[in-house]
């Protein structure tokens, strides 16, 4: 698909990264020559230097051929104008990022009356994502693929986990629920494991399972289902505001700590049910005074990444069960990966995932047998969905007898709308949809999974 992205900032770059890997044709429009130049050097895209809200620039980028135009410049109004211009000039679908809270009430109007296919507010999306995570009480990352029919969750193996130093086939035998370990992250490596793989403390595993079996597994791992009743939010920016609003609606007790006095007044006006505290979120005395330890969850959303990390470390020391913190610069996480920092959330990734899902939904049925390509676990592994044709060599052979290449795993078989988490005795049949997980092997045909 031909996609035009306007604005090469953080969101724009993340989108380019995801969408080029999924094989789309991308053109980037940005006013800054250096941004365009460096991104064109890094990715296989077309660069156009200019203002994306002008007809001239849009025409130069070939907007009439574009399937989707995504406006992600720093200014909301420019994004809306870009999307409207692009729509009028022949783009099929348009996406605009609109950040300001004032506009959040008219999102539907903009979608319907202005013809913008998707209006996305990063802070609102992130707030929803956090609230979802808090409600499910599982601070684990959930990726969904195969059009939402299968979930992929990331779990860290801790010392007291029942999974420690088990081989995978033992694991599958011991427990009565059916799960499948698709990928293991050990240090910097990503391994697609086979049955003999032994899990160790510190591994992060990515597991697929049906929704019911996932619940079973969480029970055994001690992720008990317990409701969050109170949340402490540090940082009352627009993300903090959206989150507080979401949580208050669900009758959860919310306390917001914010260091700007004017903002505090504003928040208390808008959120009468939330308690607003004026103060610095890193101040330990203040936190103790406000009964930090008694909260079920702590969410650090200040504007500074480092501050958020420190707040979450404090919260961990005080044994708060659920901690979520915002990080804009995700490369910081690499440096602190050792400290069980799994609960970072980054608005740019949440937004880009959201947009990528929209893009995928607009994808027509292309001619190849590849249905959809997903990039999972920070784009490090590739999940490809194939339709099984009658001439495939894989049909009818039990998986345990299939001679698969290294680094390949069949994660899910979708048969007549039902997803099956496959075991060794399952077979692939004609007209199934098969999801294959691999280590970036550029699979384009189902038969390529077999060792020749």
């Amino acid at each position: 698909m031909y996609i035009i992205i306007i604005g090469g900032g953080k969101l724009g770059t993340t989108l380019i990264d995801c969408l080029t890997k999924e094989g789309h044709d991308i053109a980037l429009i940005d006013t800054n020559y250096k941004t365009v130049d460096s991104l064109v050097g890094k990715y296989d895209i077309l660069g156009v230097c200019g203002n994306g809200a002008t007809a001239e620039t849009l025409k130069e980028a070939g907007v009439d051929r574009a399937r989707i135009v995504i406006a992600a410049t720093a200014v909301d109004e420019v994004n809306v104008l870009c999307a409207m211009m692009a729509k009028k000039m022949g783009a099929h679908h348009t996406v605009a990022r609109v950040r300001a809270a004032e506009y959040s009430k008219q999102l539907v109007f903009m979608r319907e009356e202005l013809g913008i296919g998707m209006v996305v507010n990063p802070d609102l999306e992130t707030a929803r994502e956090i609230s979802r995570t808090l409600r499910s009480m599982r601070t684990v990352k959930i990726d969904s693929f195969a059009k939402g029919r299968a979930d992929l969750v990331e779990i860290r193996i801790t010392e007291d986990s029942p999974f420690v130093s088990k081989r995978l086939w033992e694991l599958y035998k011991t427990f009565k629920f059916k799960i499948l370990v698709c990928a293991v992250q050990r240090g910097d490596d990503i391994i697609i494991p086979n049955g003999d793989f032994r899990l160790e403390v510190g591994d992060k595993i990515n597991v697929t399972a049906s929704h019911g079996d996932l619940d079973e597994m969480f029970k055994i791992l001690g992720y008990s289902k317990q409701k969050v009743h109170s949340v402490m939010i540090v940082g009352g920016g627009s993300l903090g505001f959206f989150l507080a609003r979401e949580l208050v609606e669900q009758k959860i007790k919310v306390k917001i700590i914010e260091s700007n006095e004017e903002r505090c007044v504003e928040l208390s006006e808008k959120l009468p049910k939330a308690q607003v505290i004026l103060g610095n979120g890193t101040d330990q005395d203040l936190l103790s005074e406000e009964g930090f330890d008694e909260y079920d969850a702590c969410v650090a959303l200040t504007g500074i990444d480092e501050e958020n990390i420190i707040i979450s470390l404090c919260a961990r020391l005080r044994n708060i069960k659920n901690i979520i913190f915002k990080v804009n610069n995700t490369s910081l996480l690499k440096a602190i990966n050792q400290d069980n920092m799994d609960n970072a959330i980054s608005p740019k990734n949440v937004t880009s995932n959201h947009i990528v899902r929209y893009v995928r939904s607009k994808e027509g049925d292309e001619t190849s047998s590849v249905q959809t390509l997903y990039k999972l676990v920070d784009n490090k592994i590739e999940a490809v969905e194939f339709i099984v044709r009658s001439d495939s060599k894989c049909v009818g052979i039990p998986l345990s007898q299939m001679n698969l290449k290294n680094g390949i795993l069949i994660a899910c078989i979708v048969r007549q709308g039902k997803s099956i988490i496959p075991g060794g005795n399952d077979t692939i049949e004609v007209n199934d949809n098969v999801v294959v997980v691999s280590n970036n092997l550029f699979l384009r045909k189902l038969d390529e999974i077999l060792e020749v």
Partner: protein
Amino acid sequence: MINSKMIFYVLGRLSFIEAAFLLVSLFVSLVCGNLFKGDMLLIAYLIPIVILVTLGFALSLKKPNNSHFYAKEGFVVVAASWFLMSLFGALPSWISGYIPSFIDAFFETASGFTTTGSSILTDIEALPKGLLFWRSFTHWIGGMGVLVFMLAIFPEQETQSIFLMKAESPGPQVGKIVSKLRATAQILYGIYLVFTLVEMVMLLFGGLSFYDSVVTSFATAGTGGFAIYNDSIGHYRNVAGVNYIYCEYVISAFMILFGVNFNIFYLMLIKRFKEAFSSEEVLTYLAVVLSAIGVISLNTFQVYGSVEETIRNAFFNVSSLISTTGFGTVSINDLPQLSKTILIILMFFGACAGSTGGGVKIARVILWVKSGFAEIRRCISPNSVISTKYEGKKVDSTIVRSTNSYLVLYLVIFIVSTLLVSLDGFDFESTFTGVLSCFNNIGPGFGKMLGVVGNFSQFSNFSKLVLIFDMIAGRLELLPVMVLFSFKTYKK
């Protein structure tokens, strides 16, 4: 740290490509019946093919894990590959004994790949047709570039391959025309191929034999200038059945066309005519061509007498030199001094960026003139803010800076080369235009040596090596070659 594994990997892939090109020439030799007449030609082709295929397998068998590839690696790969290709491409004519000195064969092949067209051969017609085909074929390969060819045919690529294209394609600003690099390379080669075929057919209509029209089209398309007769295109004047005047016009027109930025042709292809016809560079290029034809026609009217012949000759010479092709019909050395000077200036200018032509490129000339005038205006009113505009858009200061530095580097290499070549003790005109001709990938020169004898055979081996360096540096626009030979590149 430079990623040498990745560099060797790309070089390995290129070996296969050159082997394939040599195989084509071998096949042509076979068809032309040159192979089994007791000479060494079959072996002469097979040896480099075997070496290249072996190298190809050895180097590109396994893809390196660390595949990072940036501007530095791009420069080194491109420059190294052009030297290596010329070395291996020289083997057939050297092994077969048609060019006894290896340096001469190296010079001839480098001149072919860089689309210069300077020759050391005193009797071109003595070479068998198969070798002459390879000689012209190198023009066609070198014109659009072999790495661009590689990008067009190999399916899976690193995303940073753009640096290969940036290093090989001419012009101050190299951009893609569509979002995928591979598609861009394919479009460029597609246009190139179609134009070459059109010229071939048109020359066939003019009465040229099939073989002649193929090699002439190759030499025109790459703006190279190797002809297969001692008197270049002028030879066809005395061939029965050839409509010489028609052919001269066709070749002149195609020389001009191949000197136009290929992006313009793509814009026309997708029906964006307005943008295509308002390109500042192409309009300037055409204006320069027309005014040069006008002045030279006035200046040489006395020589020819007939209006048609005067204009036709002026048209041919101007297109031949500004597009940096270097075909000849009449002896340009005997032209009046004004015409000669104009032609020398055109040799400096060269064709458009993004074409197959050489020279410093019209785009740079425009930018130099504009930034020069801007500087004068700044002297007159120091506080005025002046932005340089090109193609209707503001030019980023980094581009102005790199374009200006290009001029400095260009002059330094030019002066040093002239100094080194003058060790041979030839007259100034020959020395100067010899370097000018090689550095700008043109071919012919003026003066006692080049104008009269018409080739570079008299120069010493040392001068030939200097000129080989100039040709490759000129074709790749200096920086890749300078990076290749700079120690800092390899420092840890």
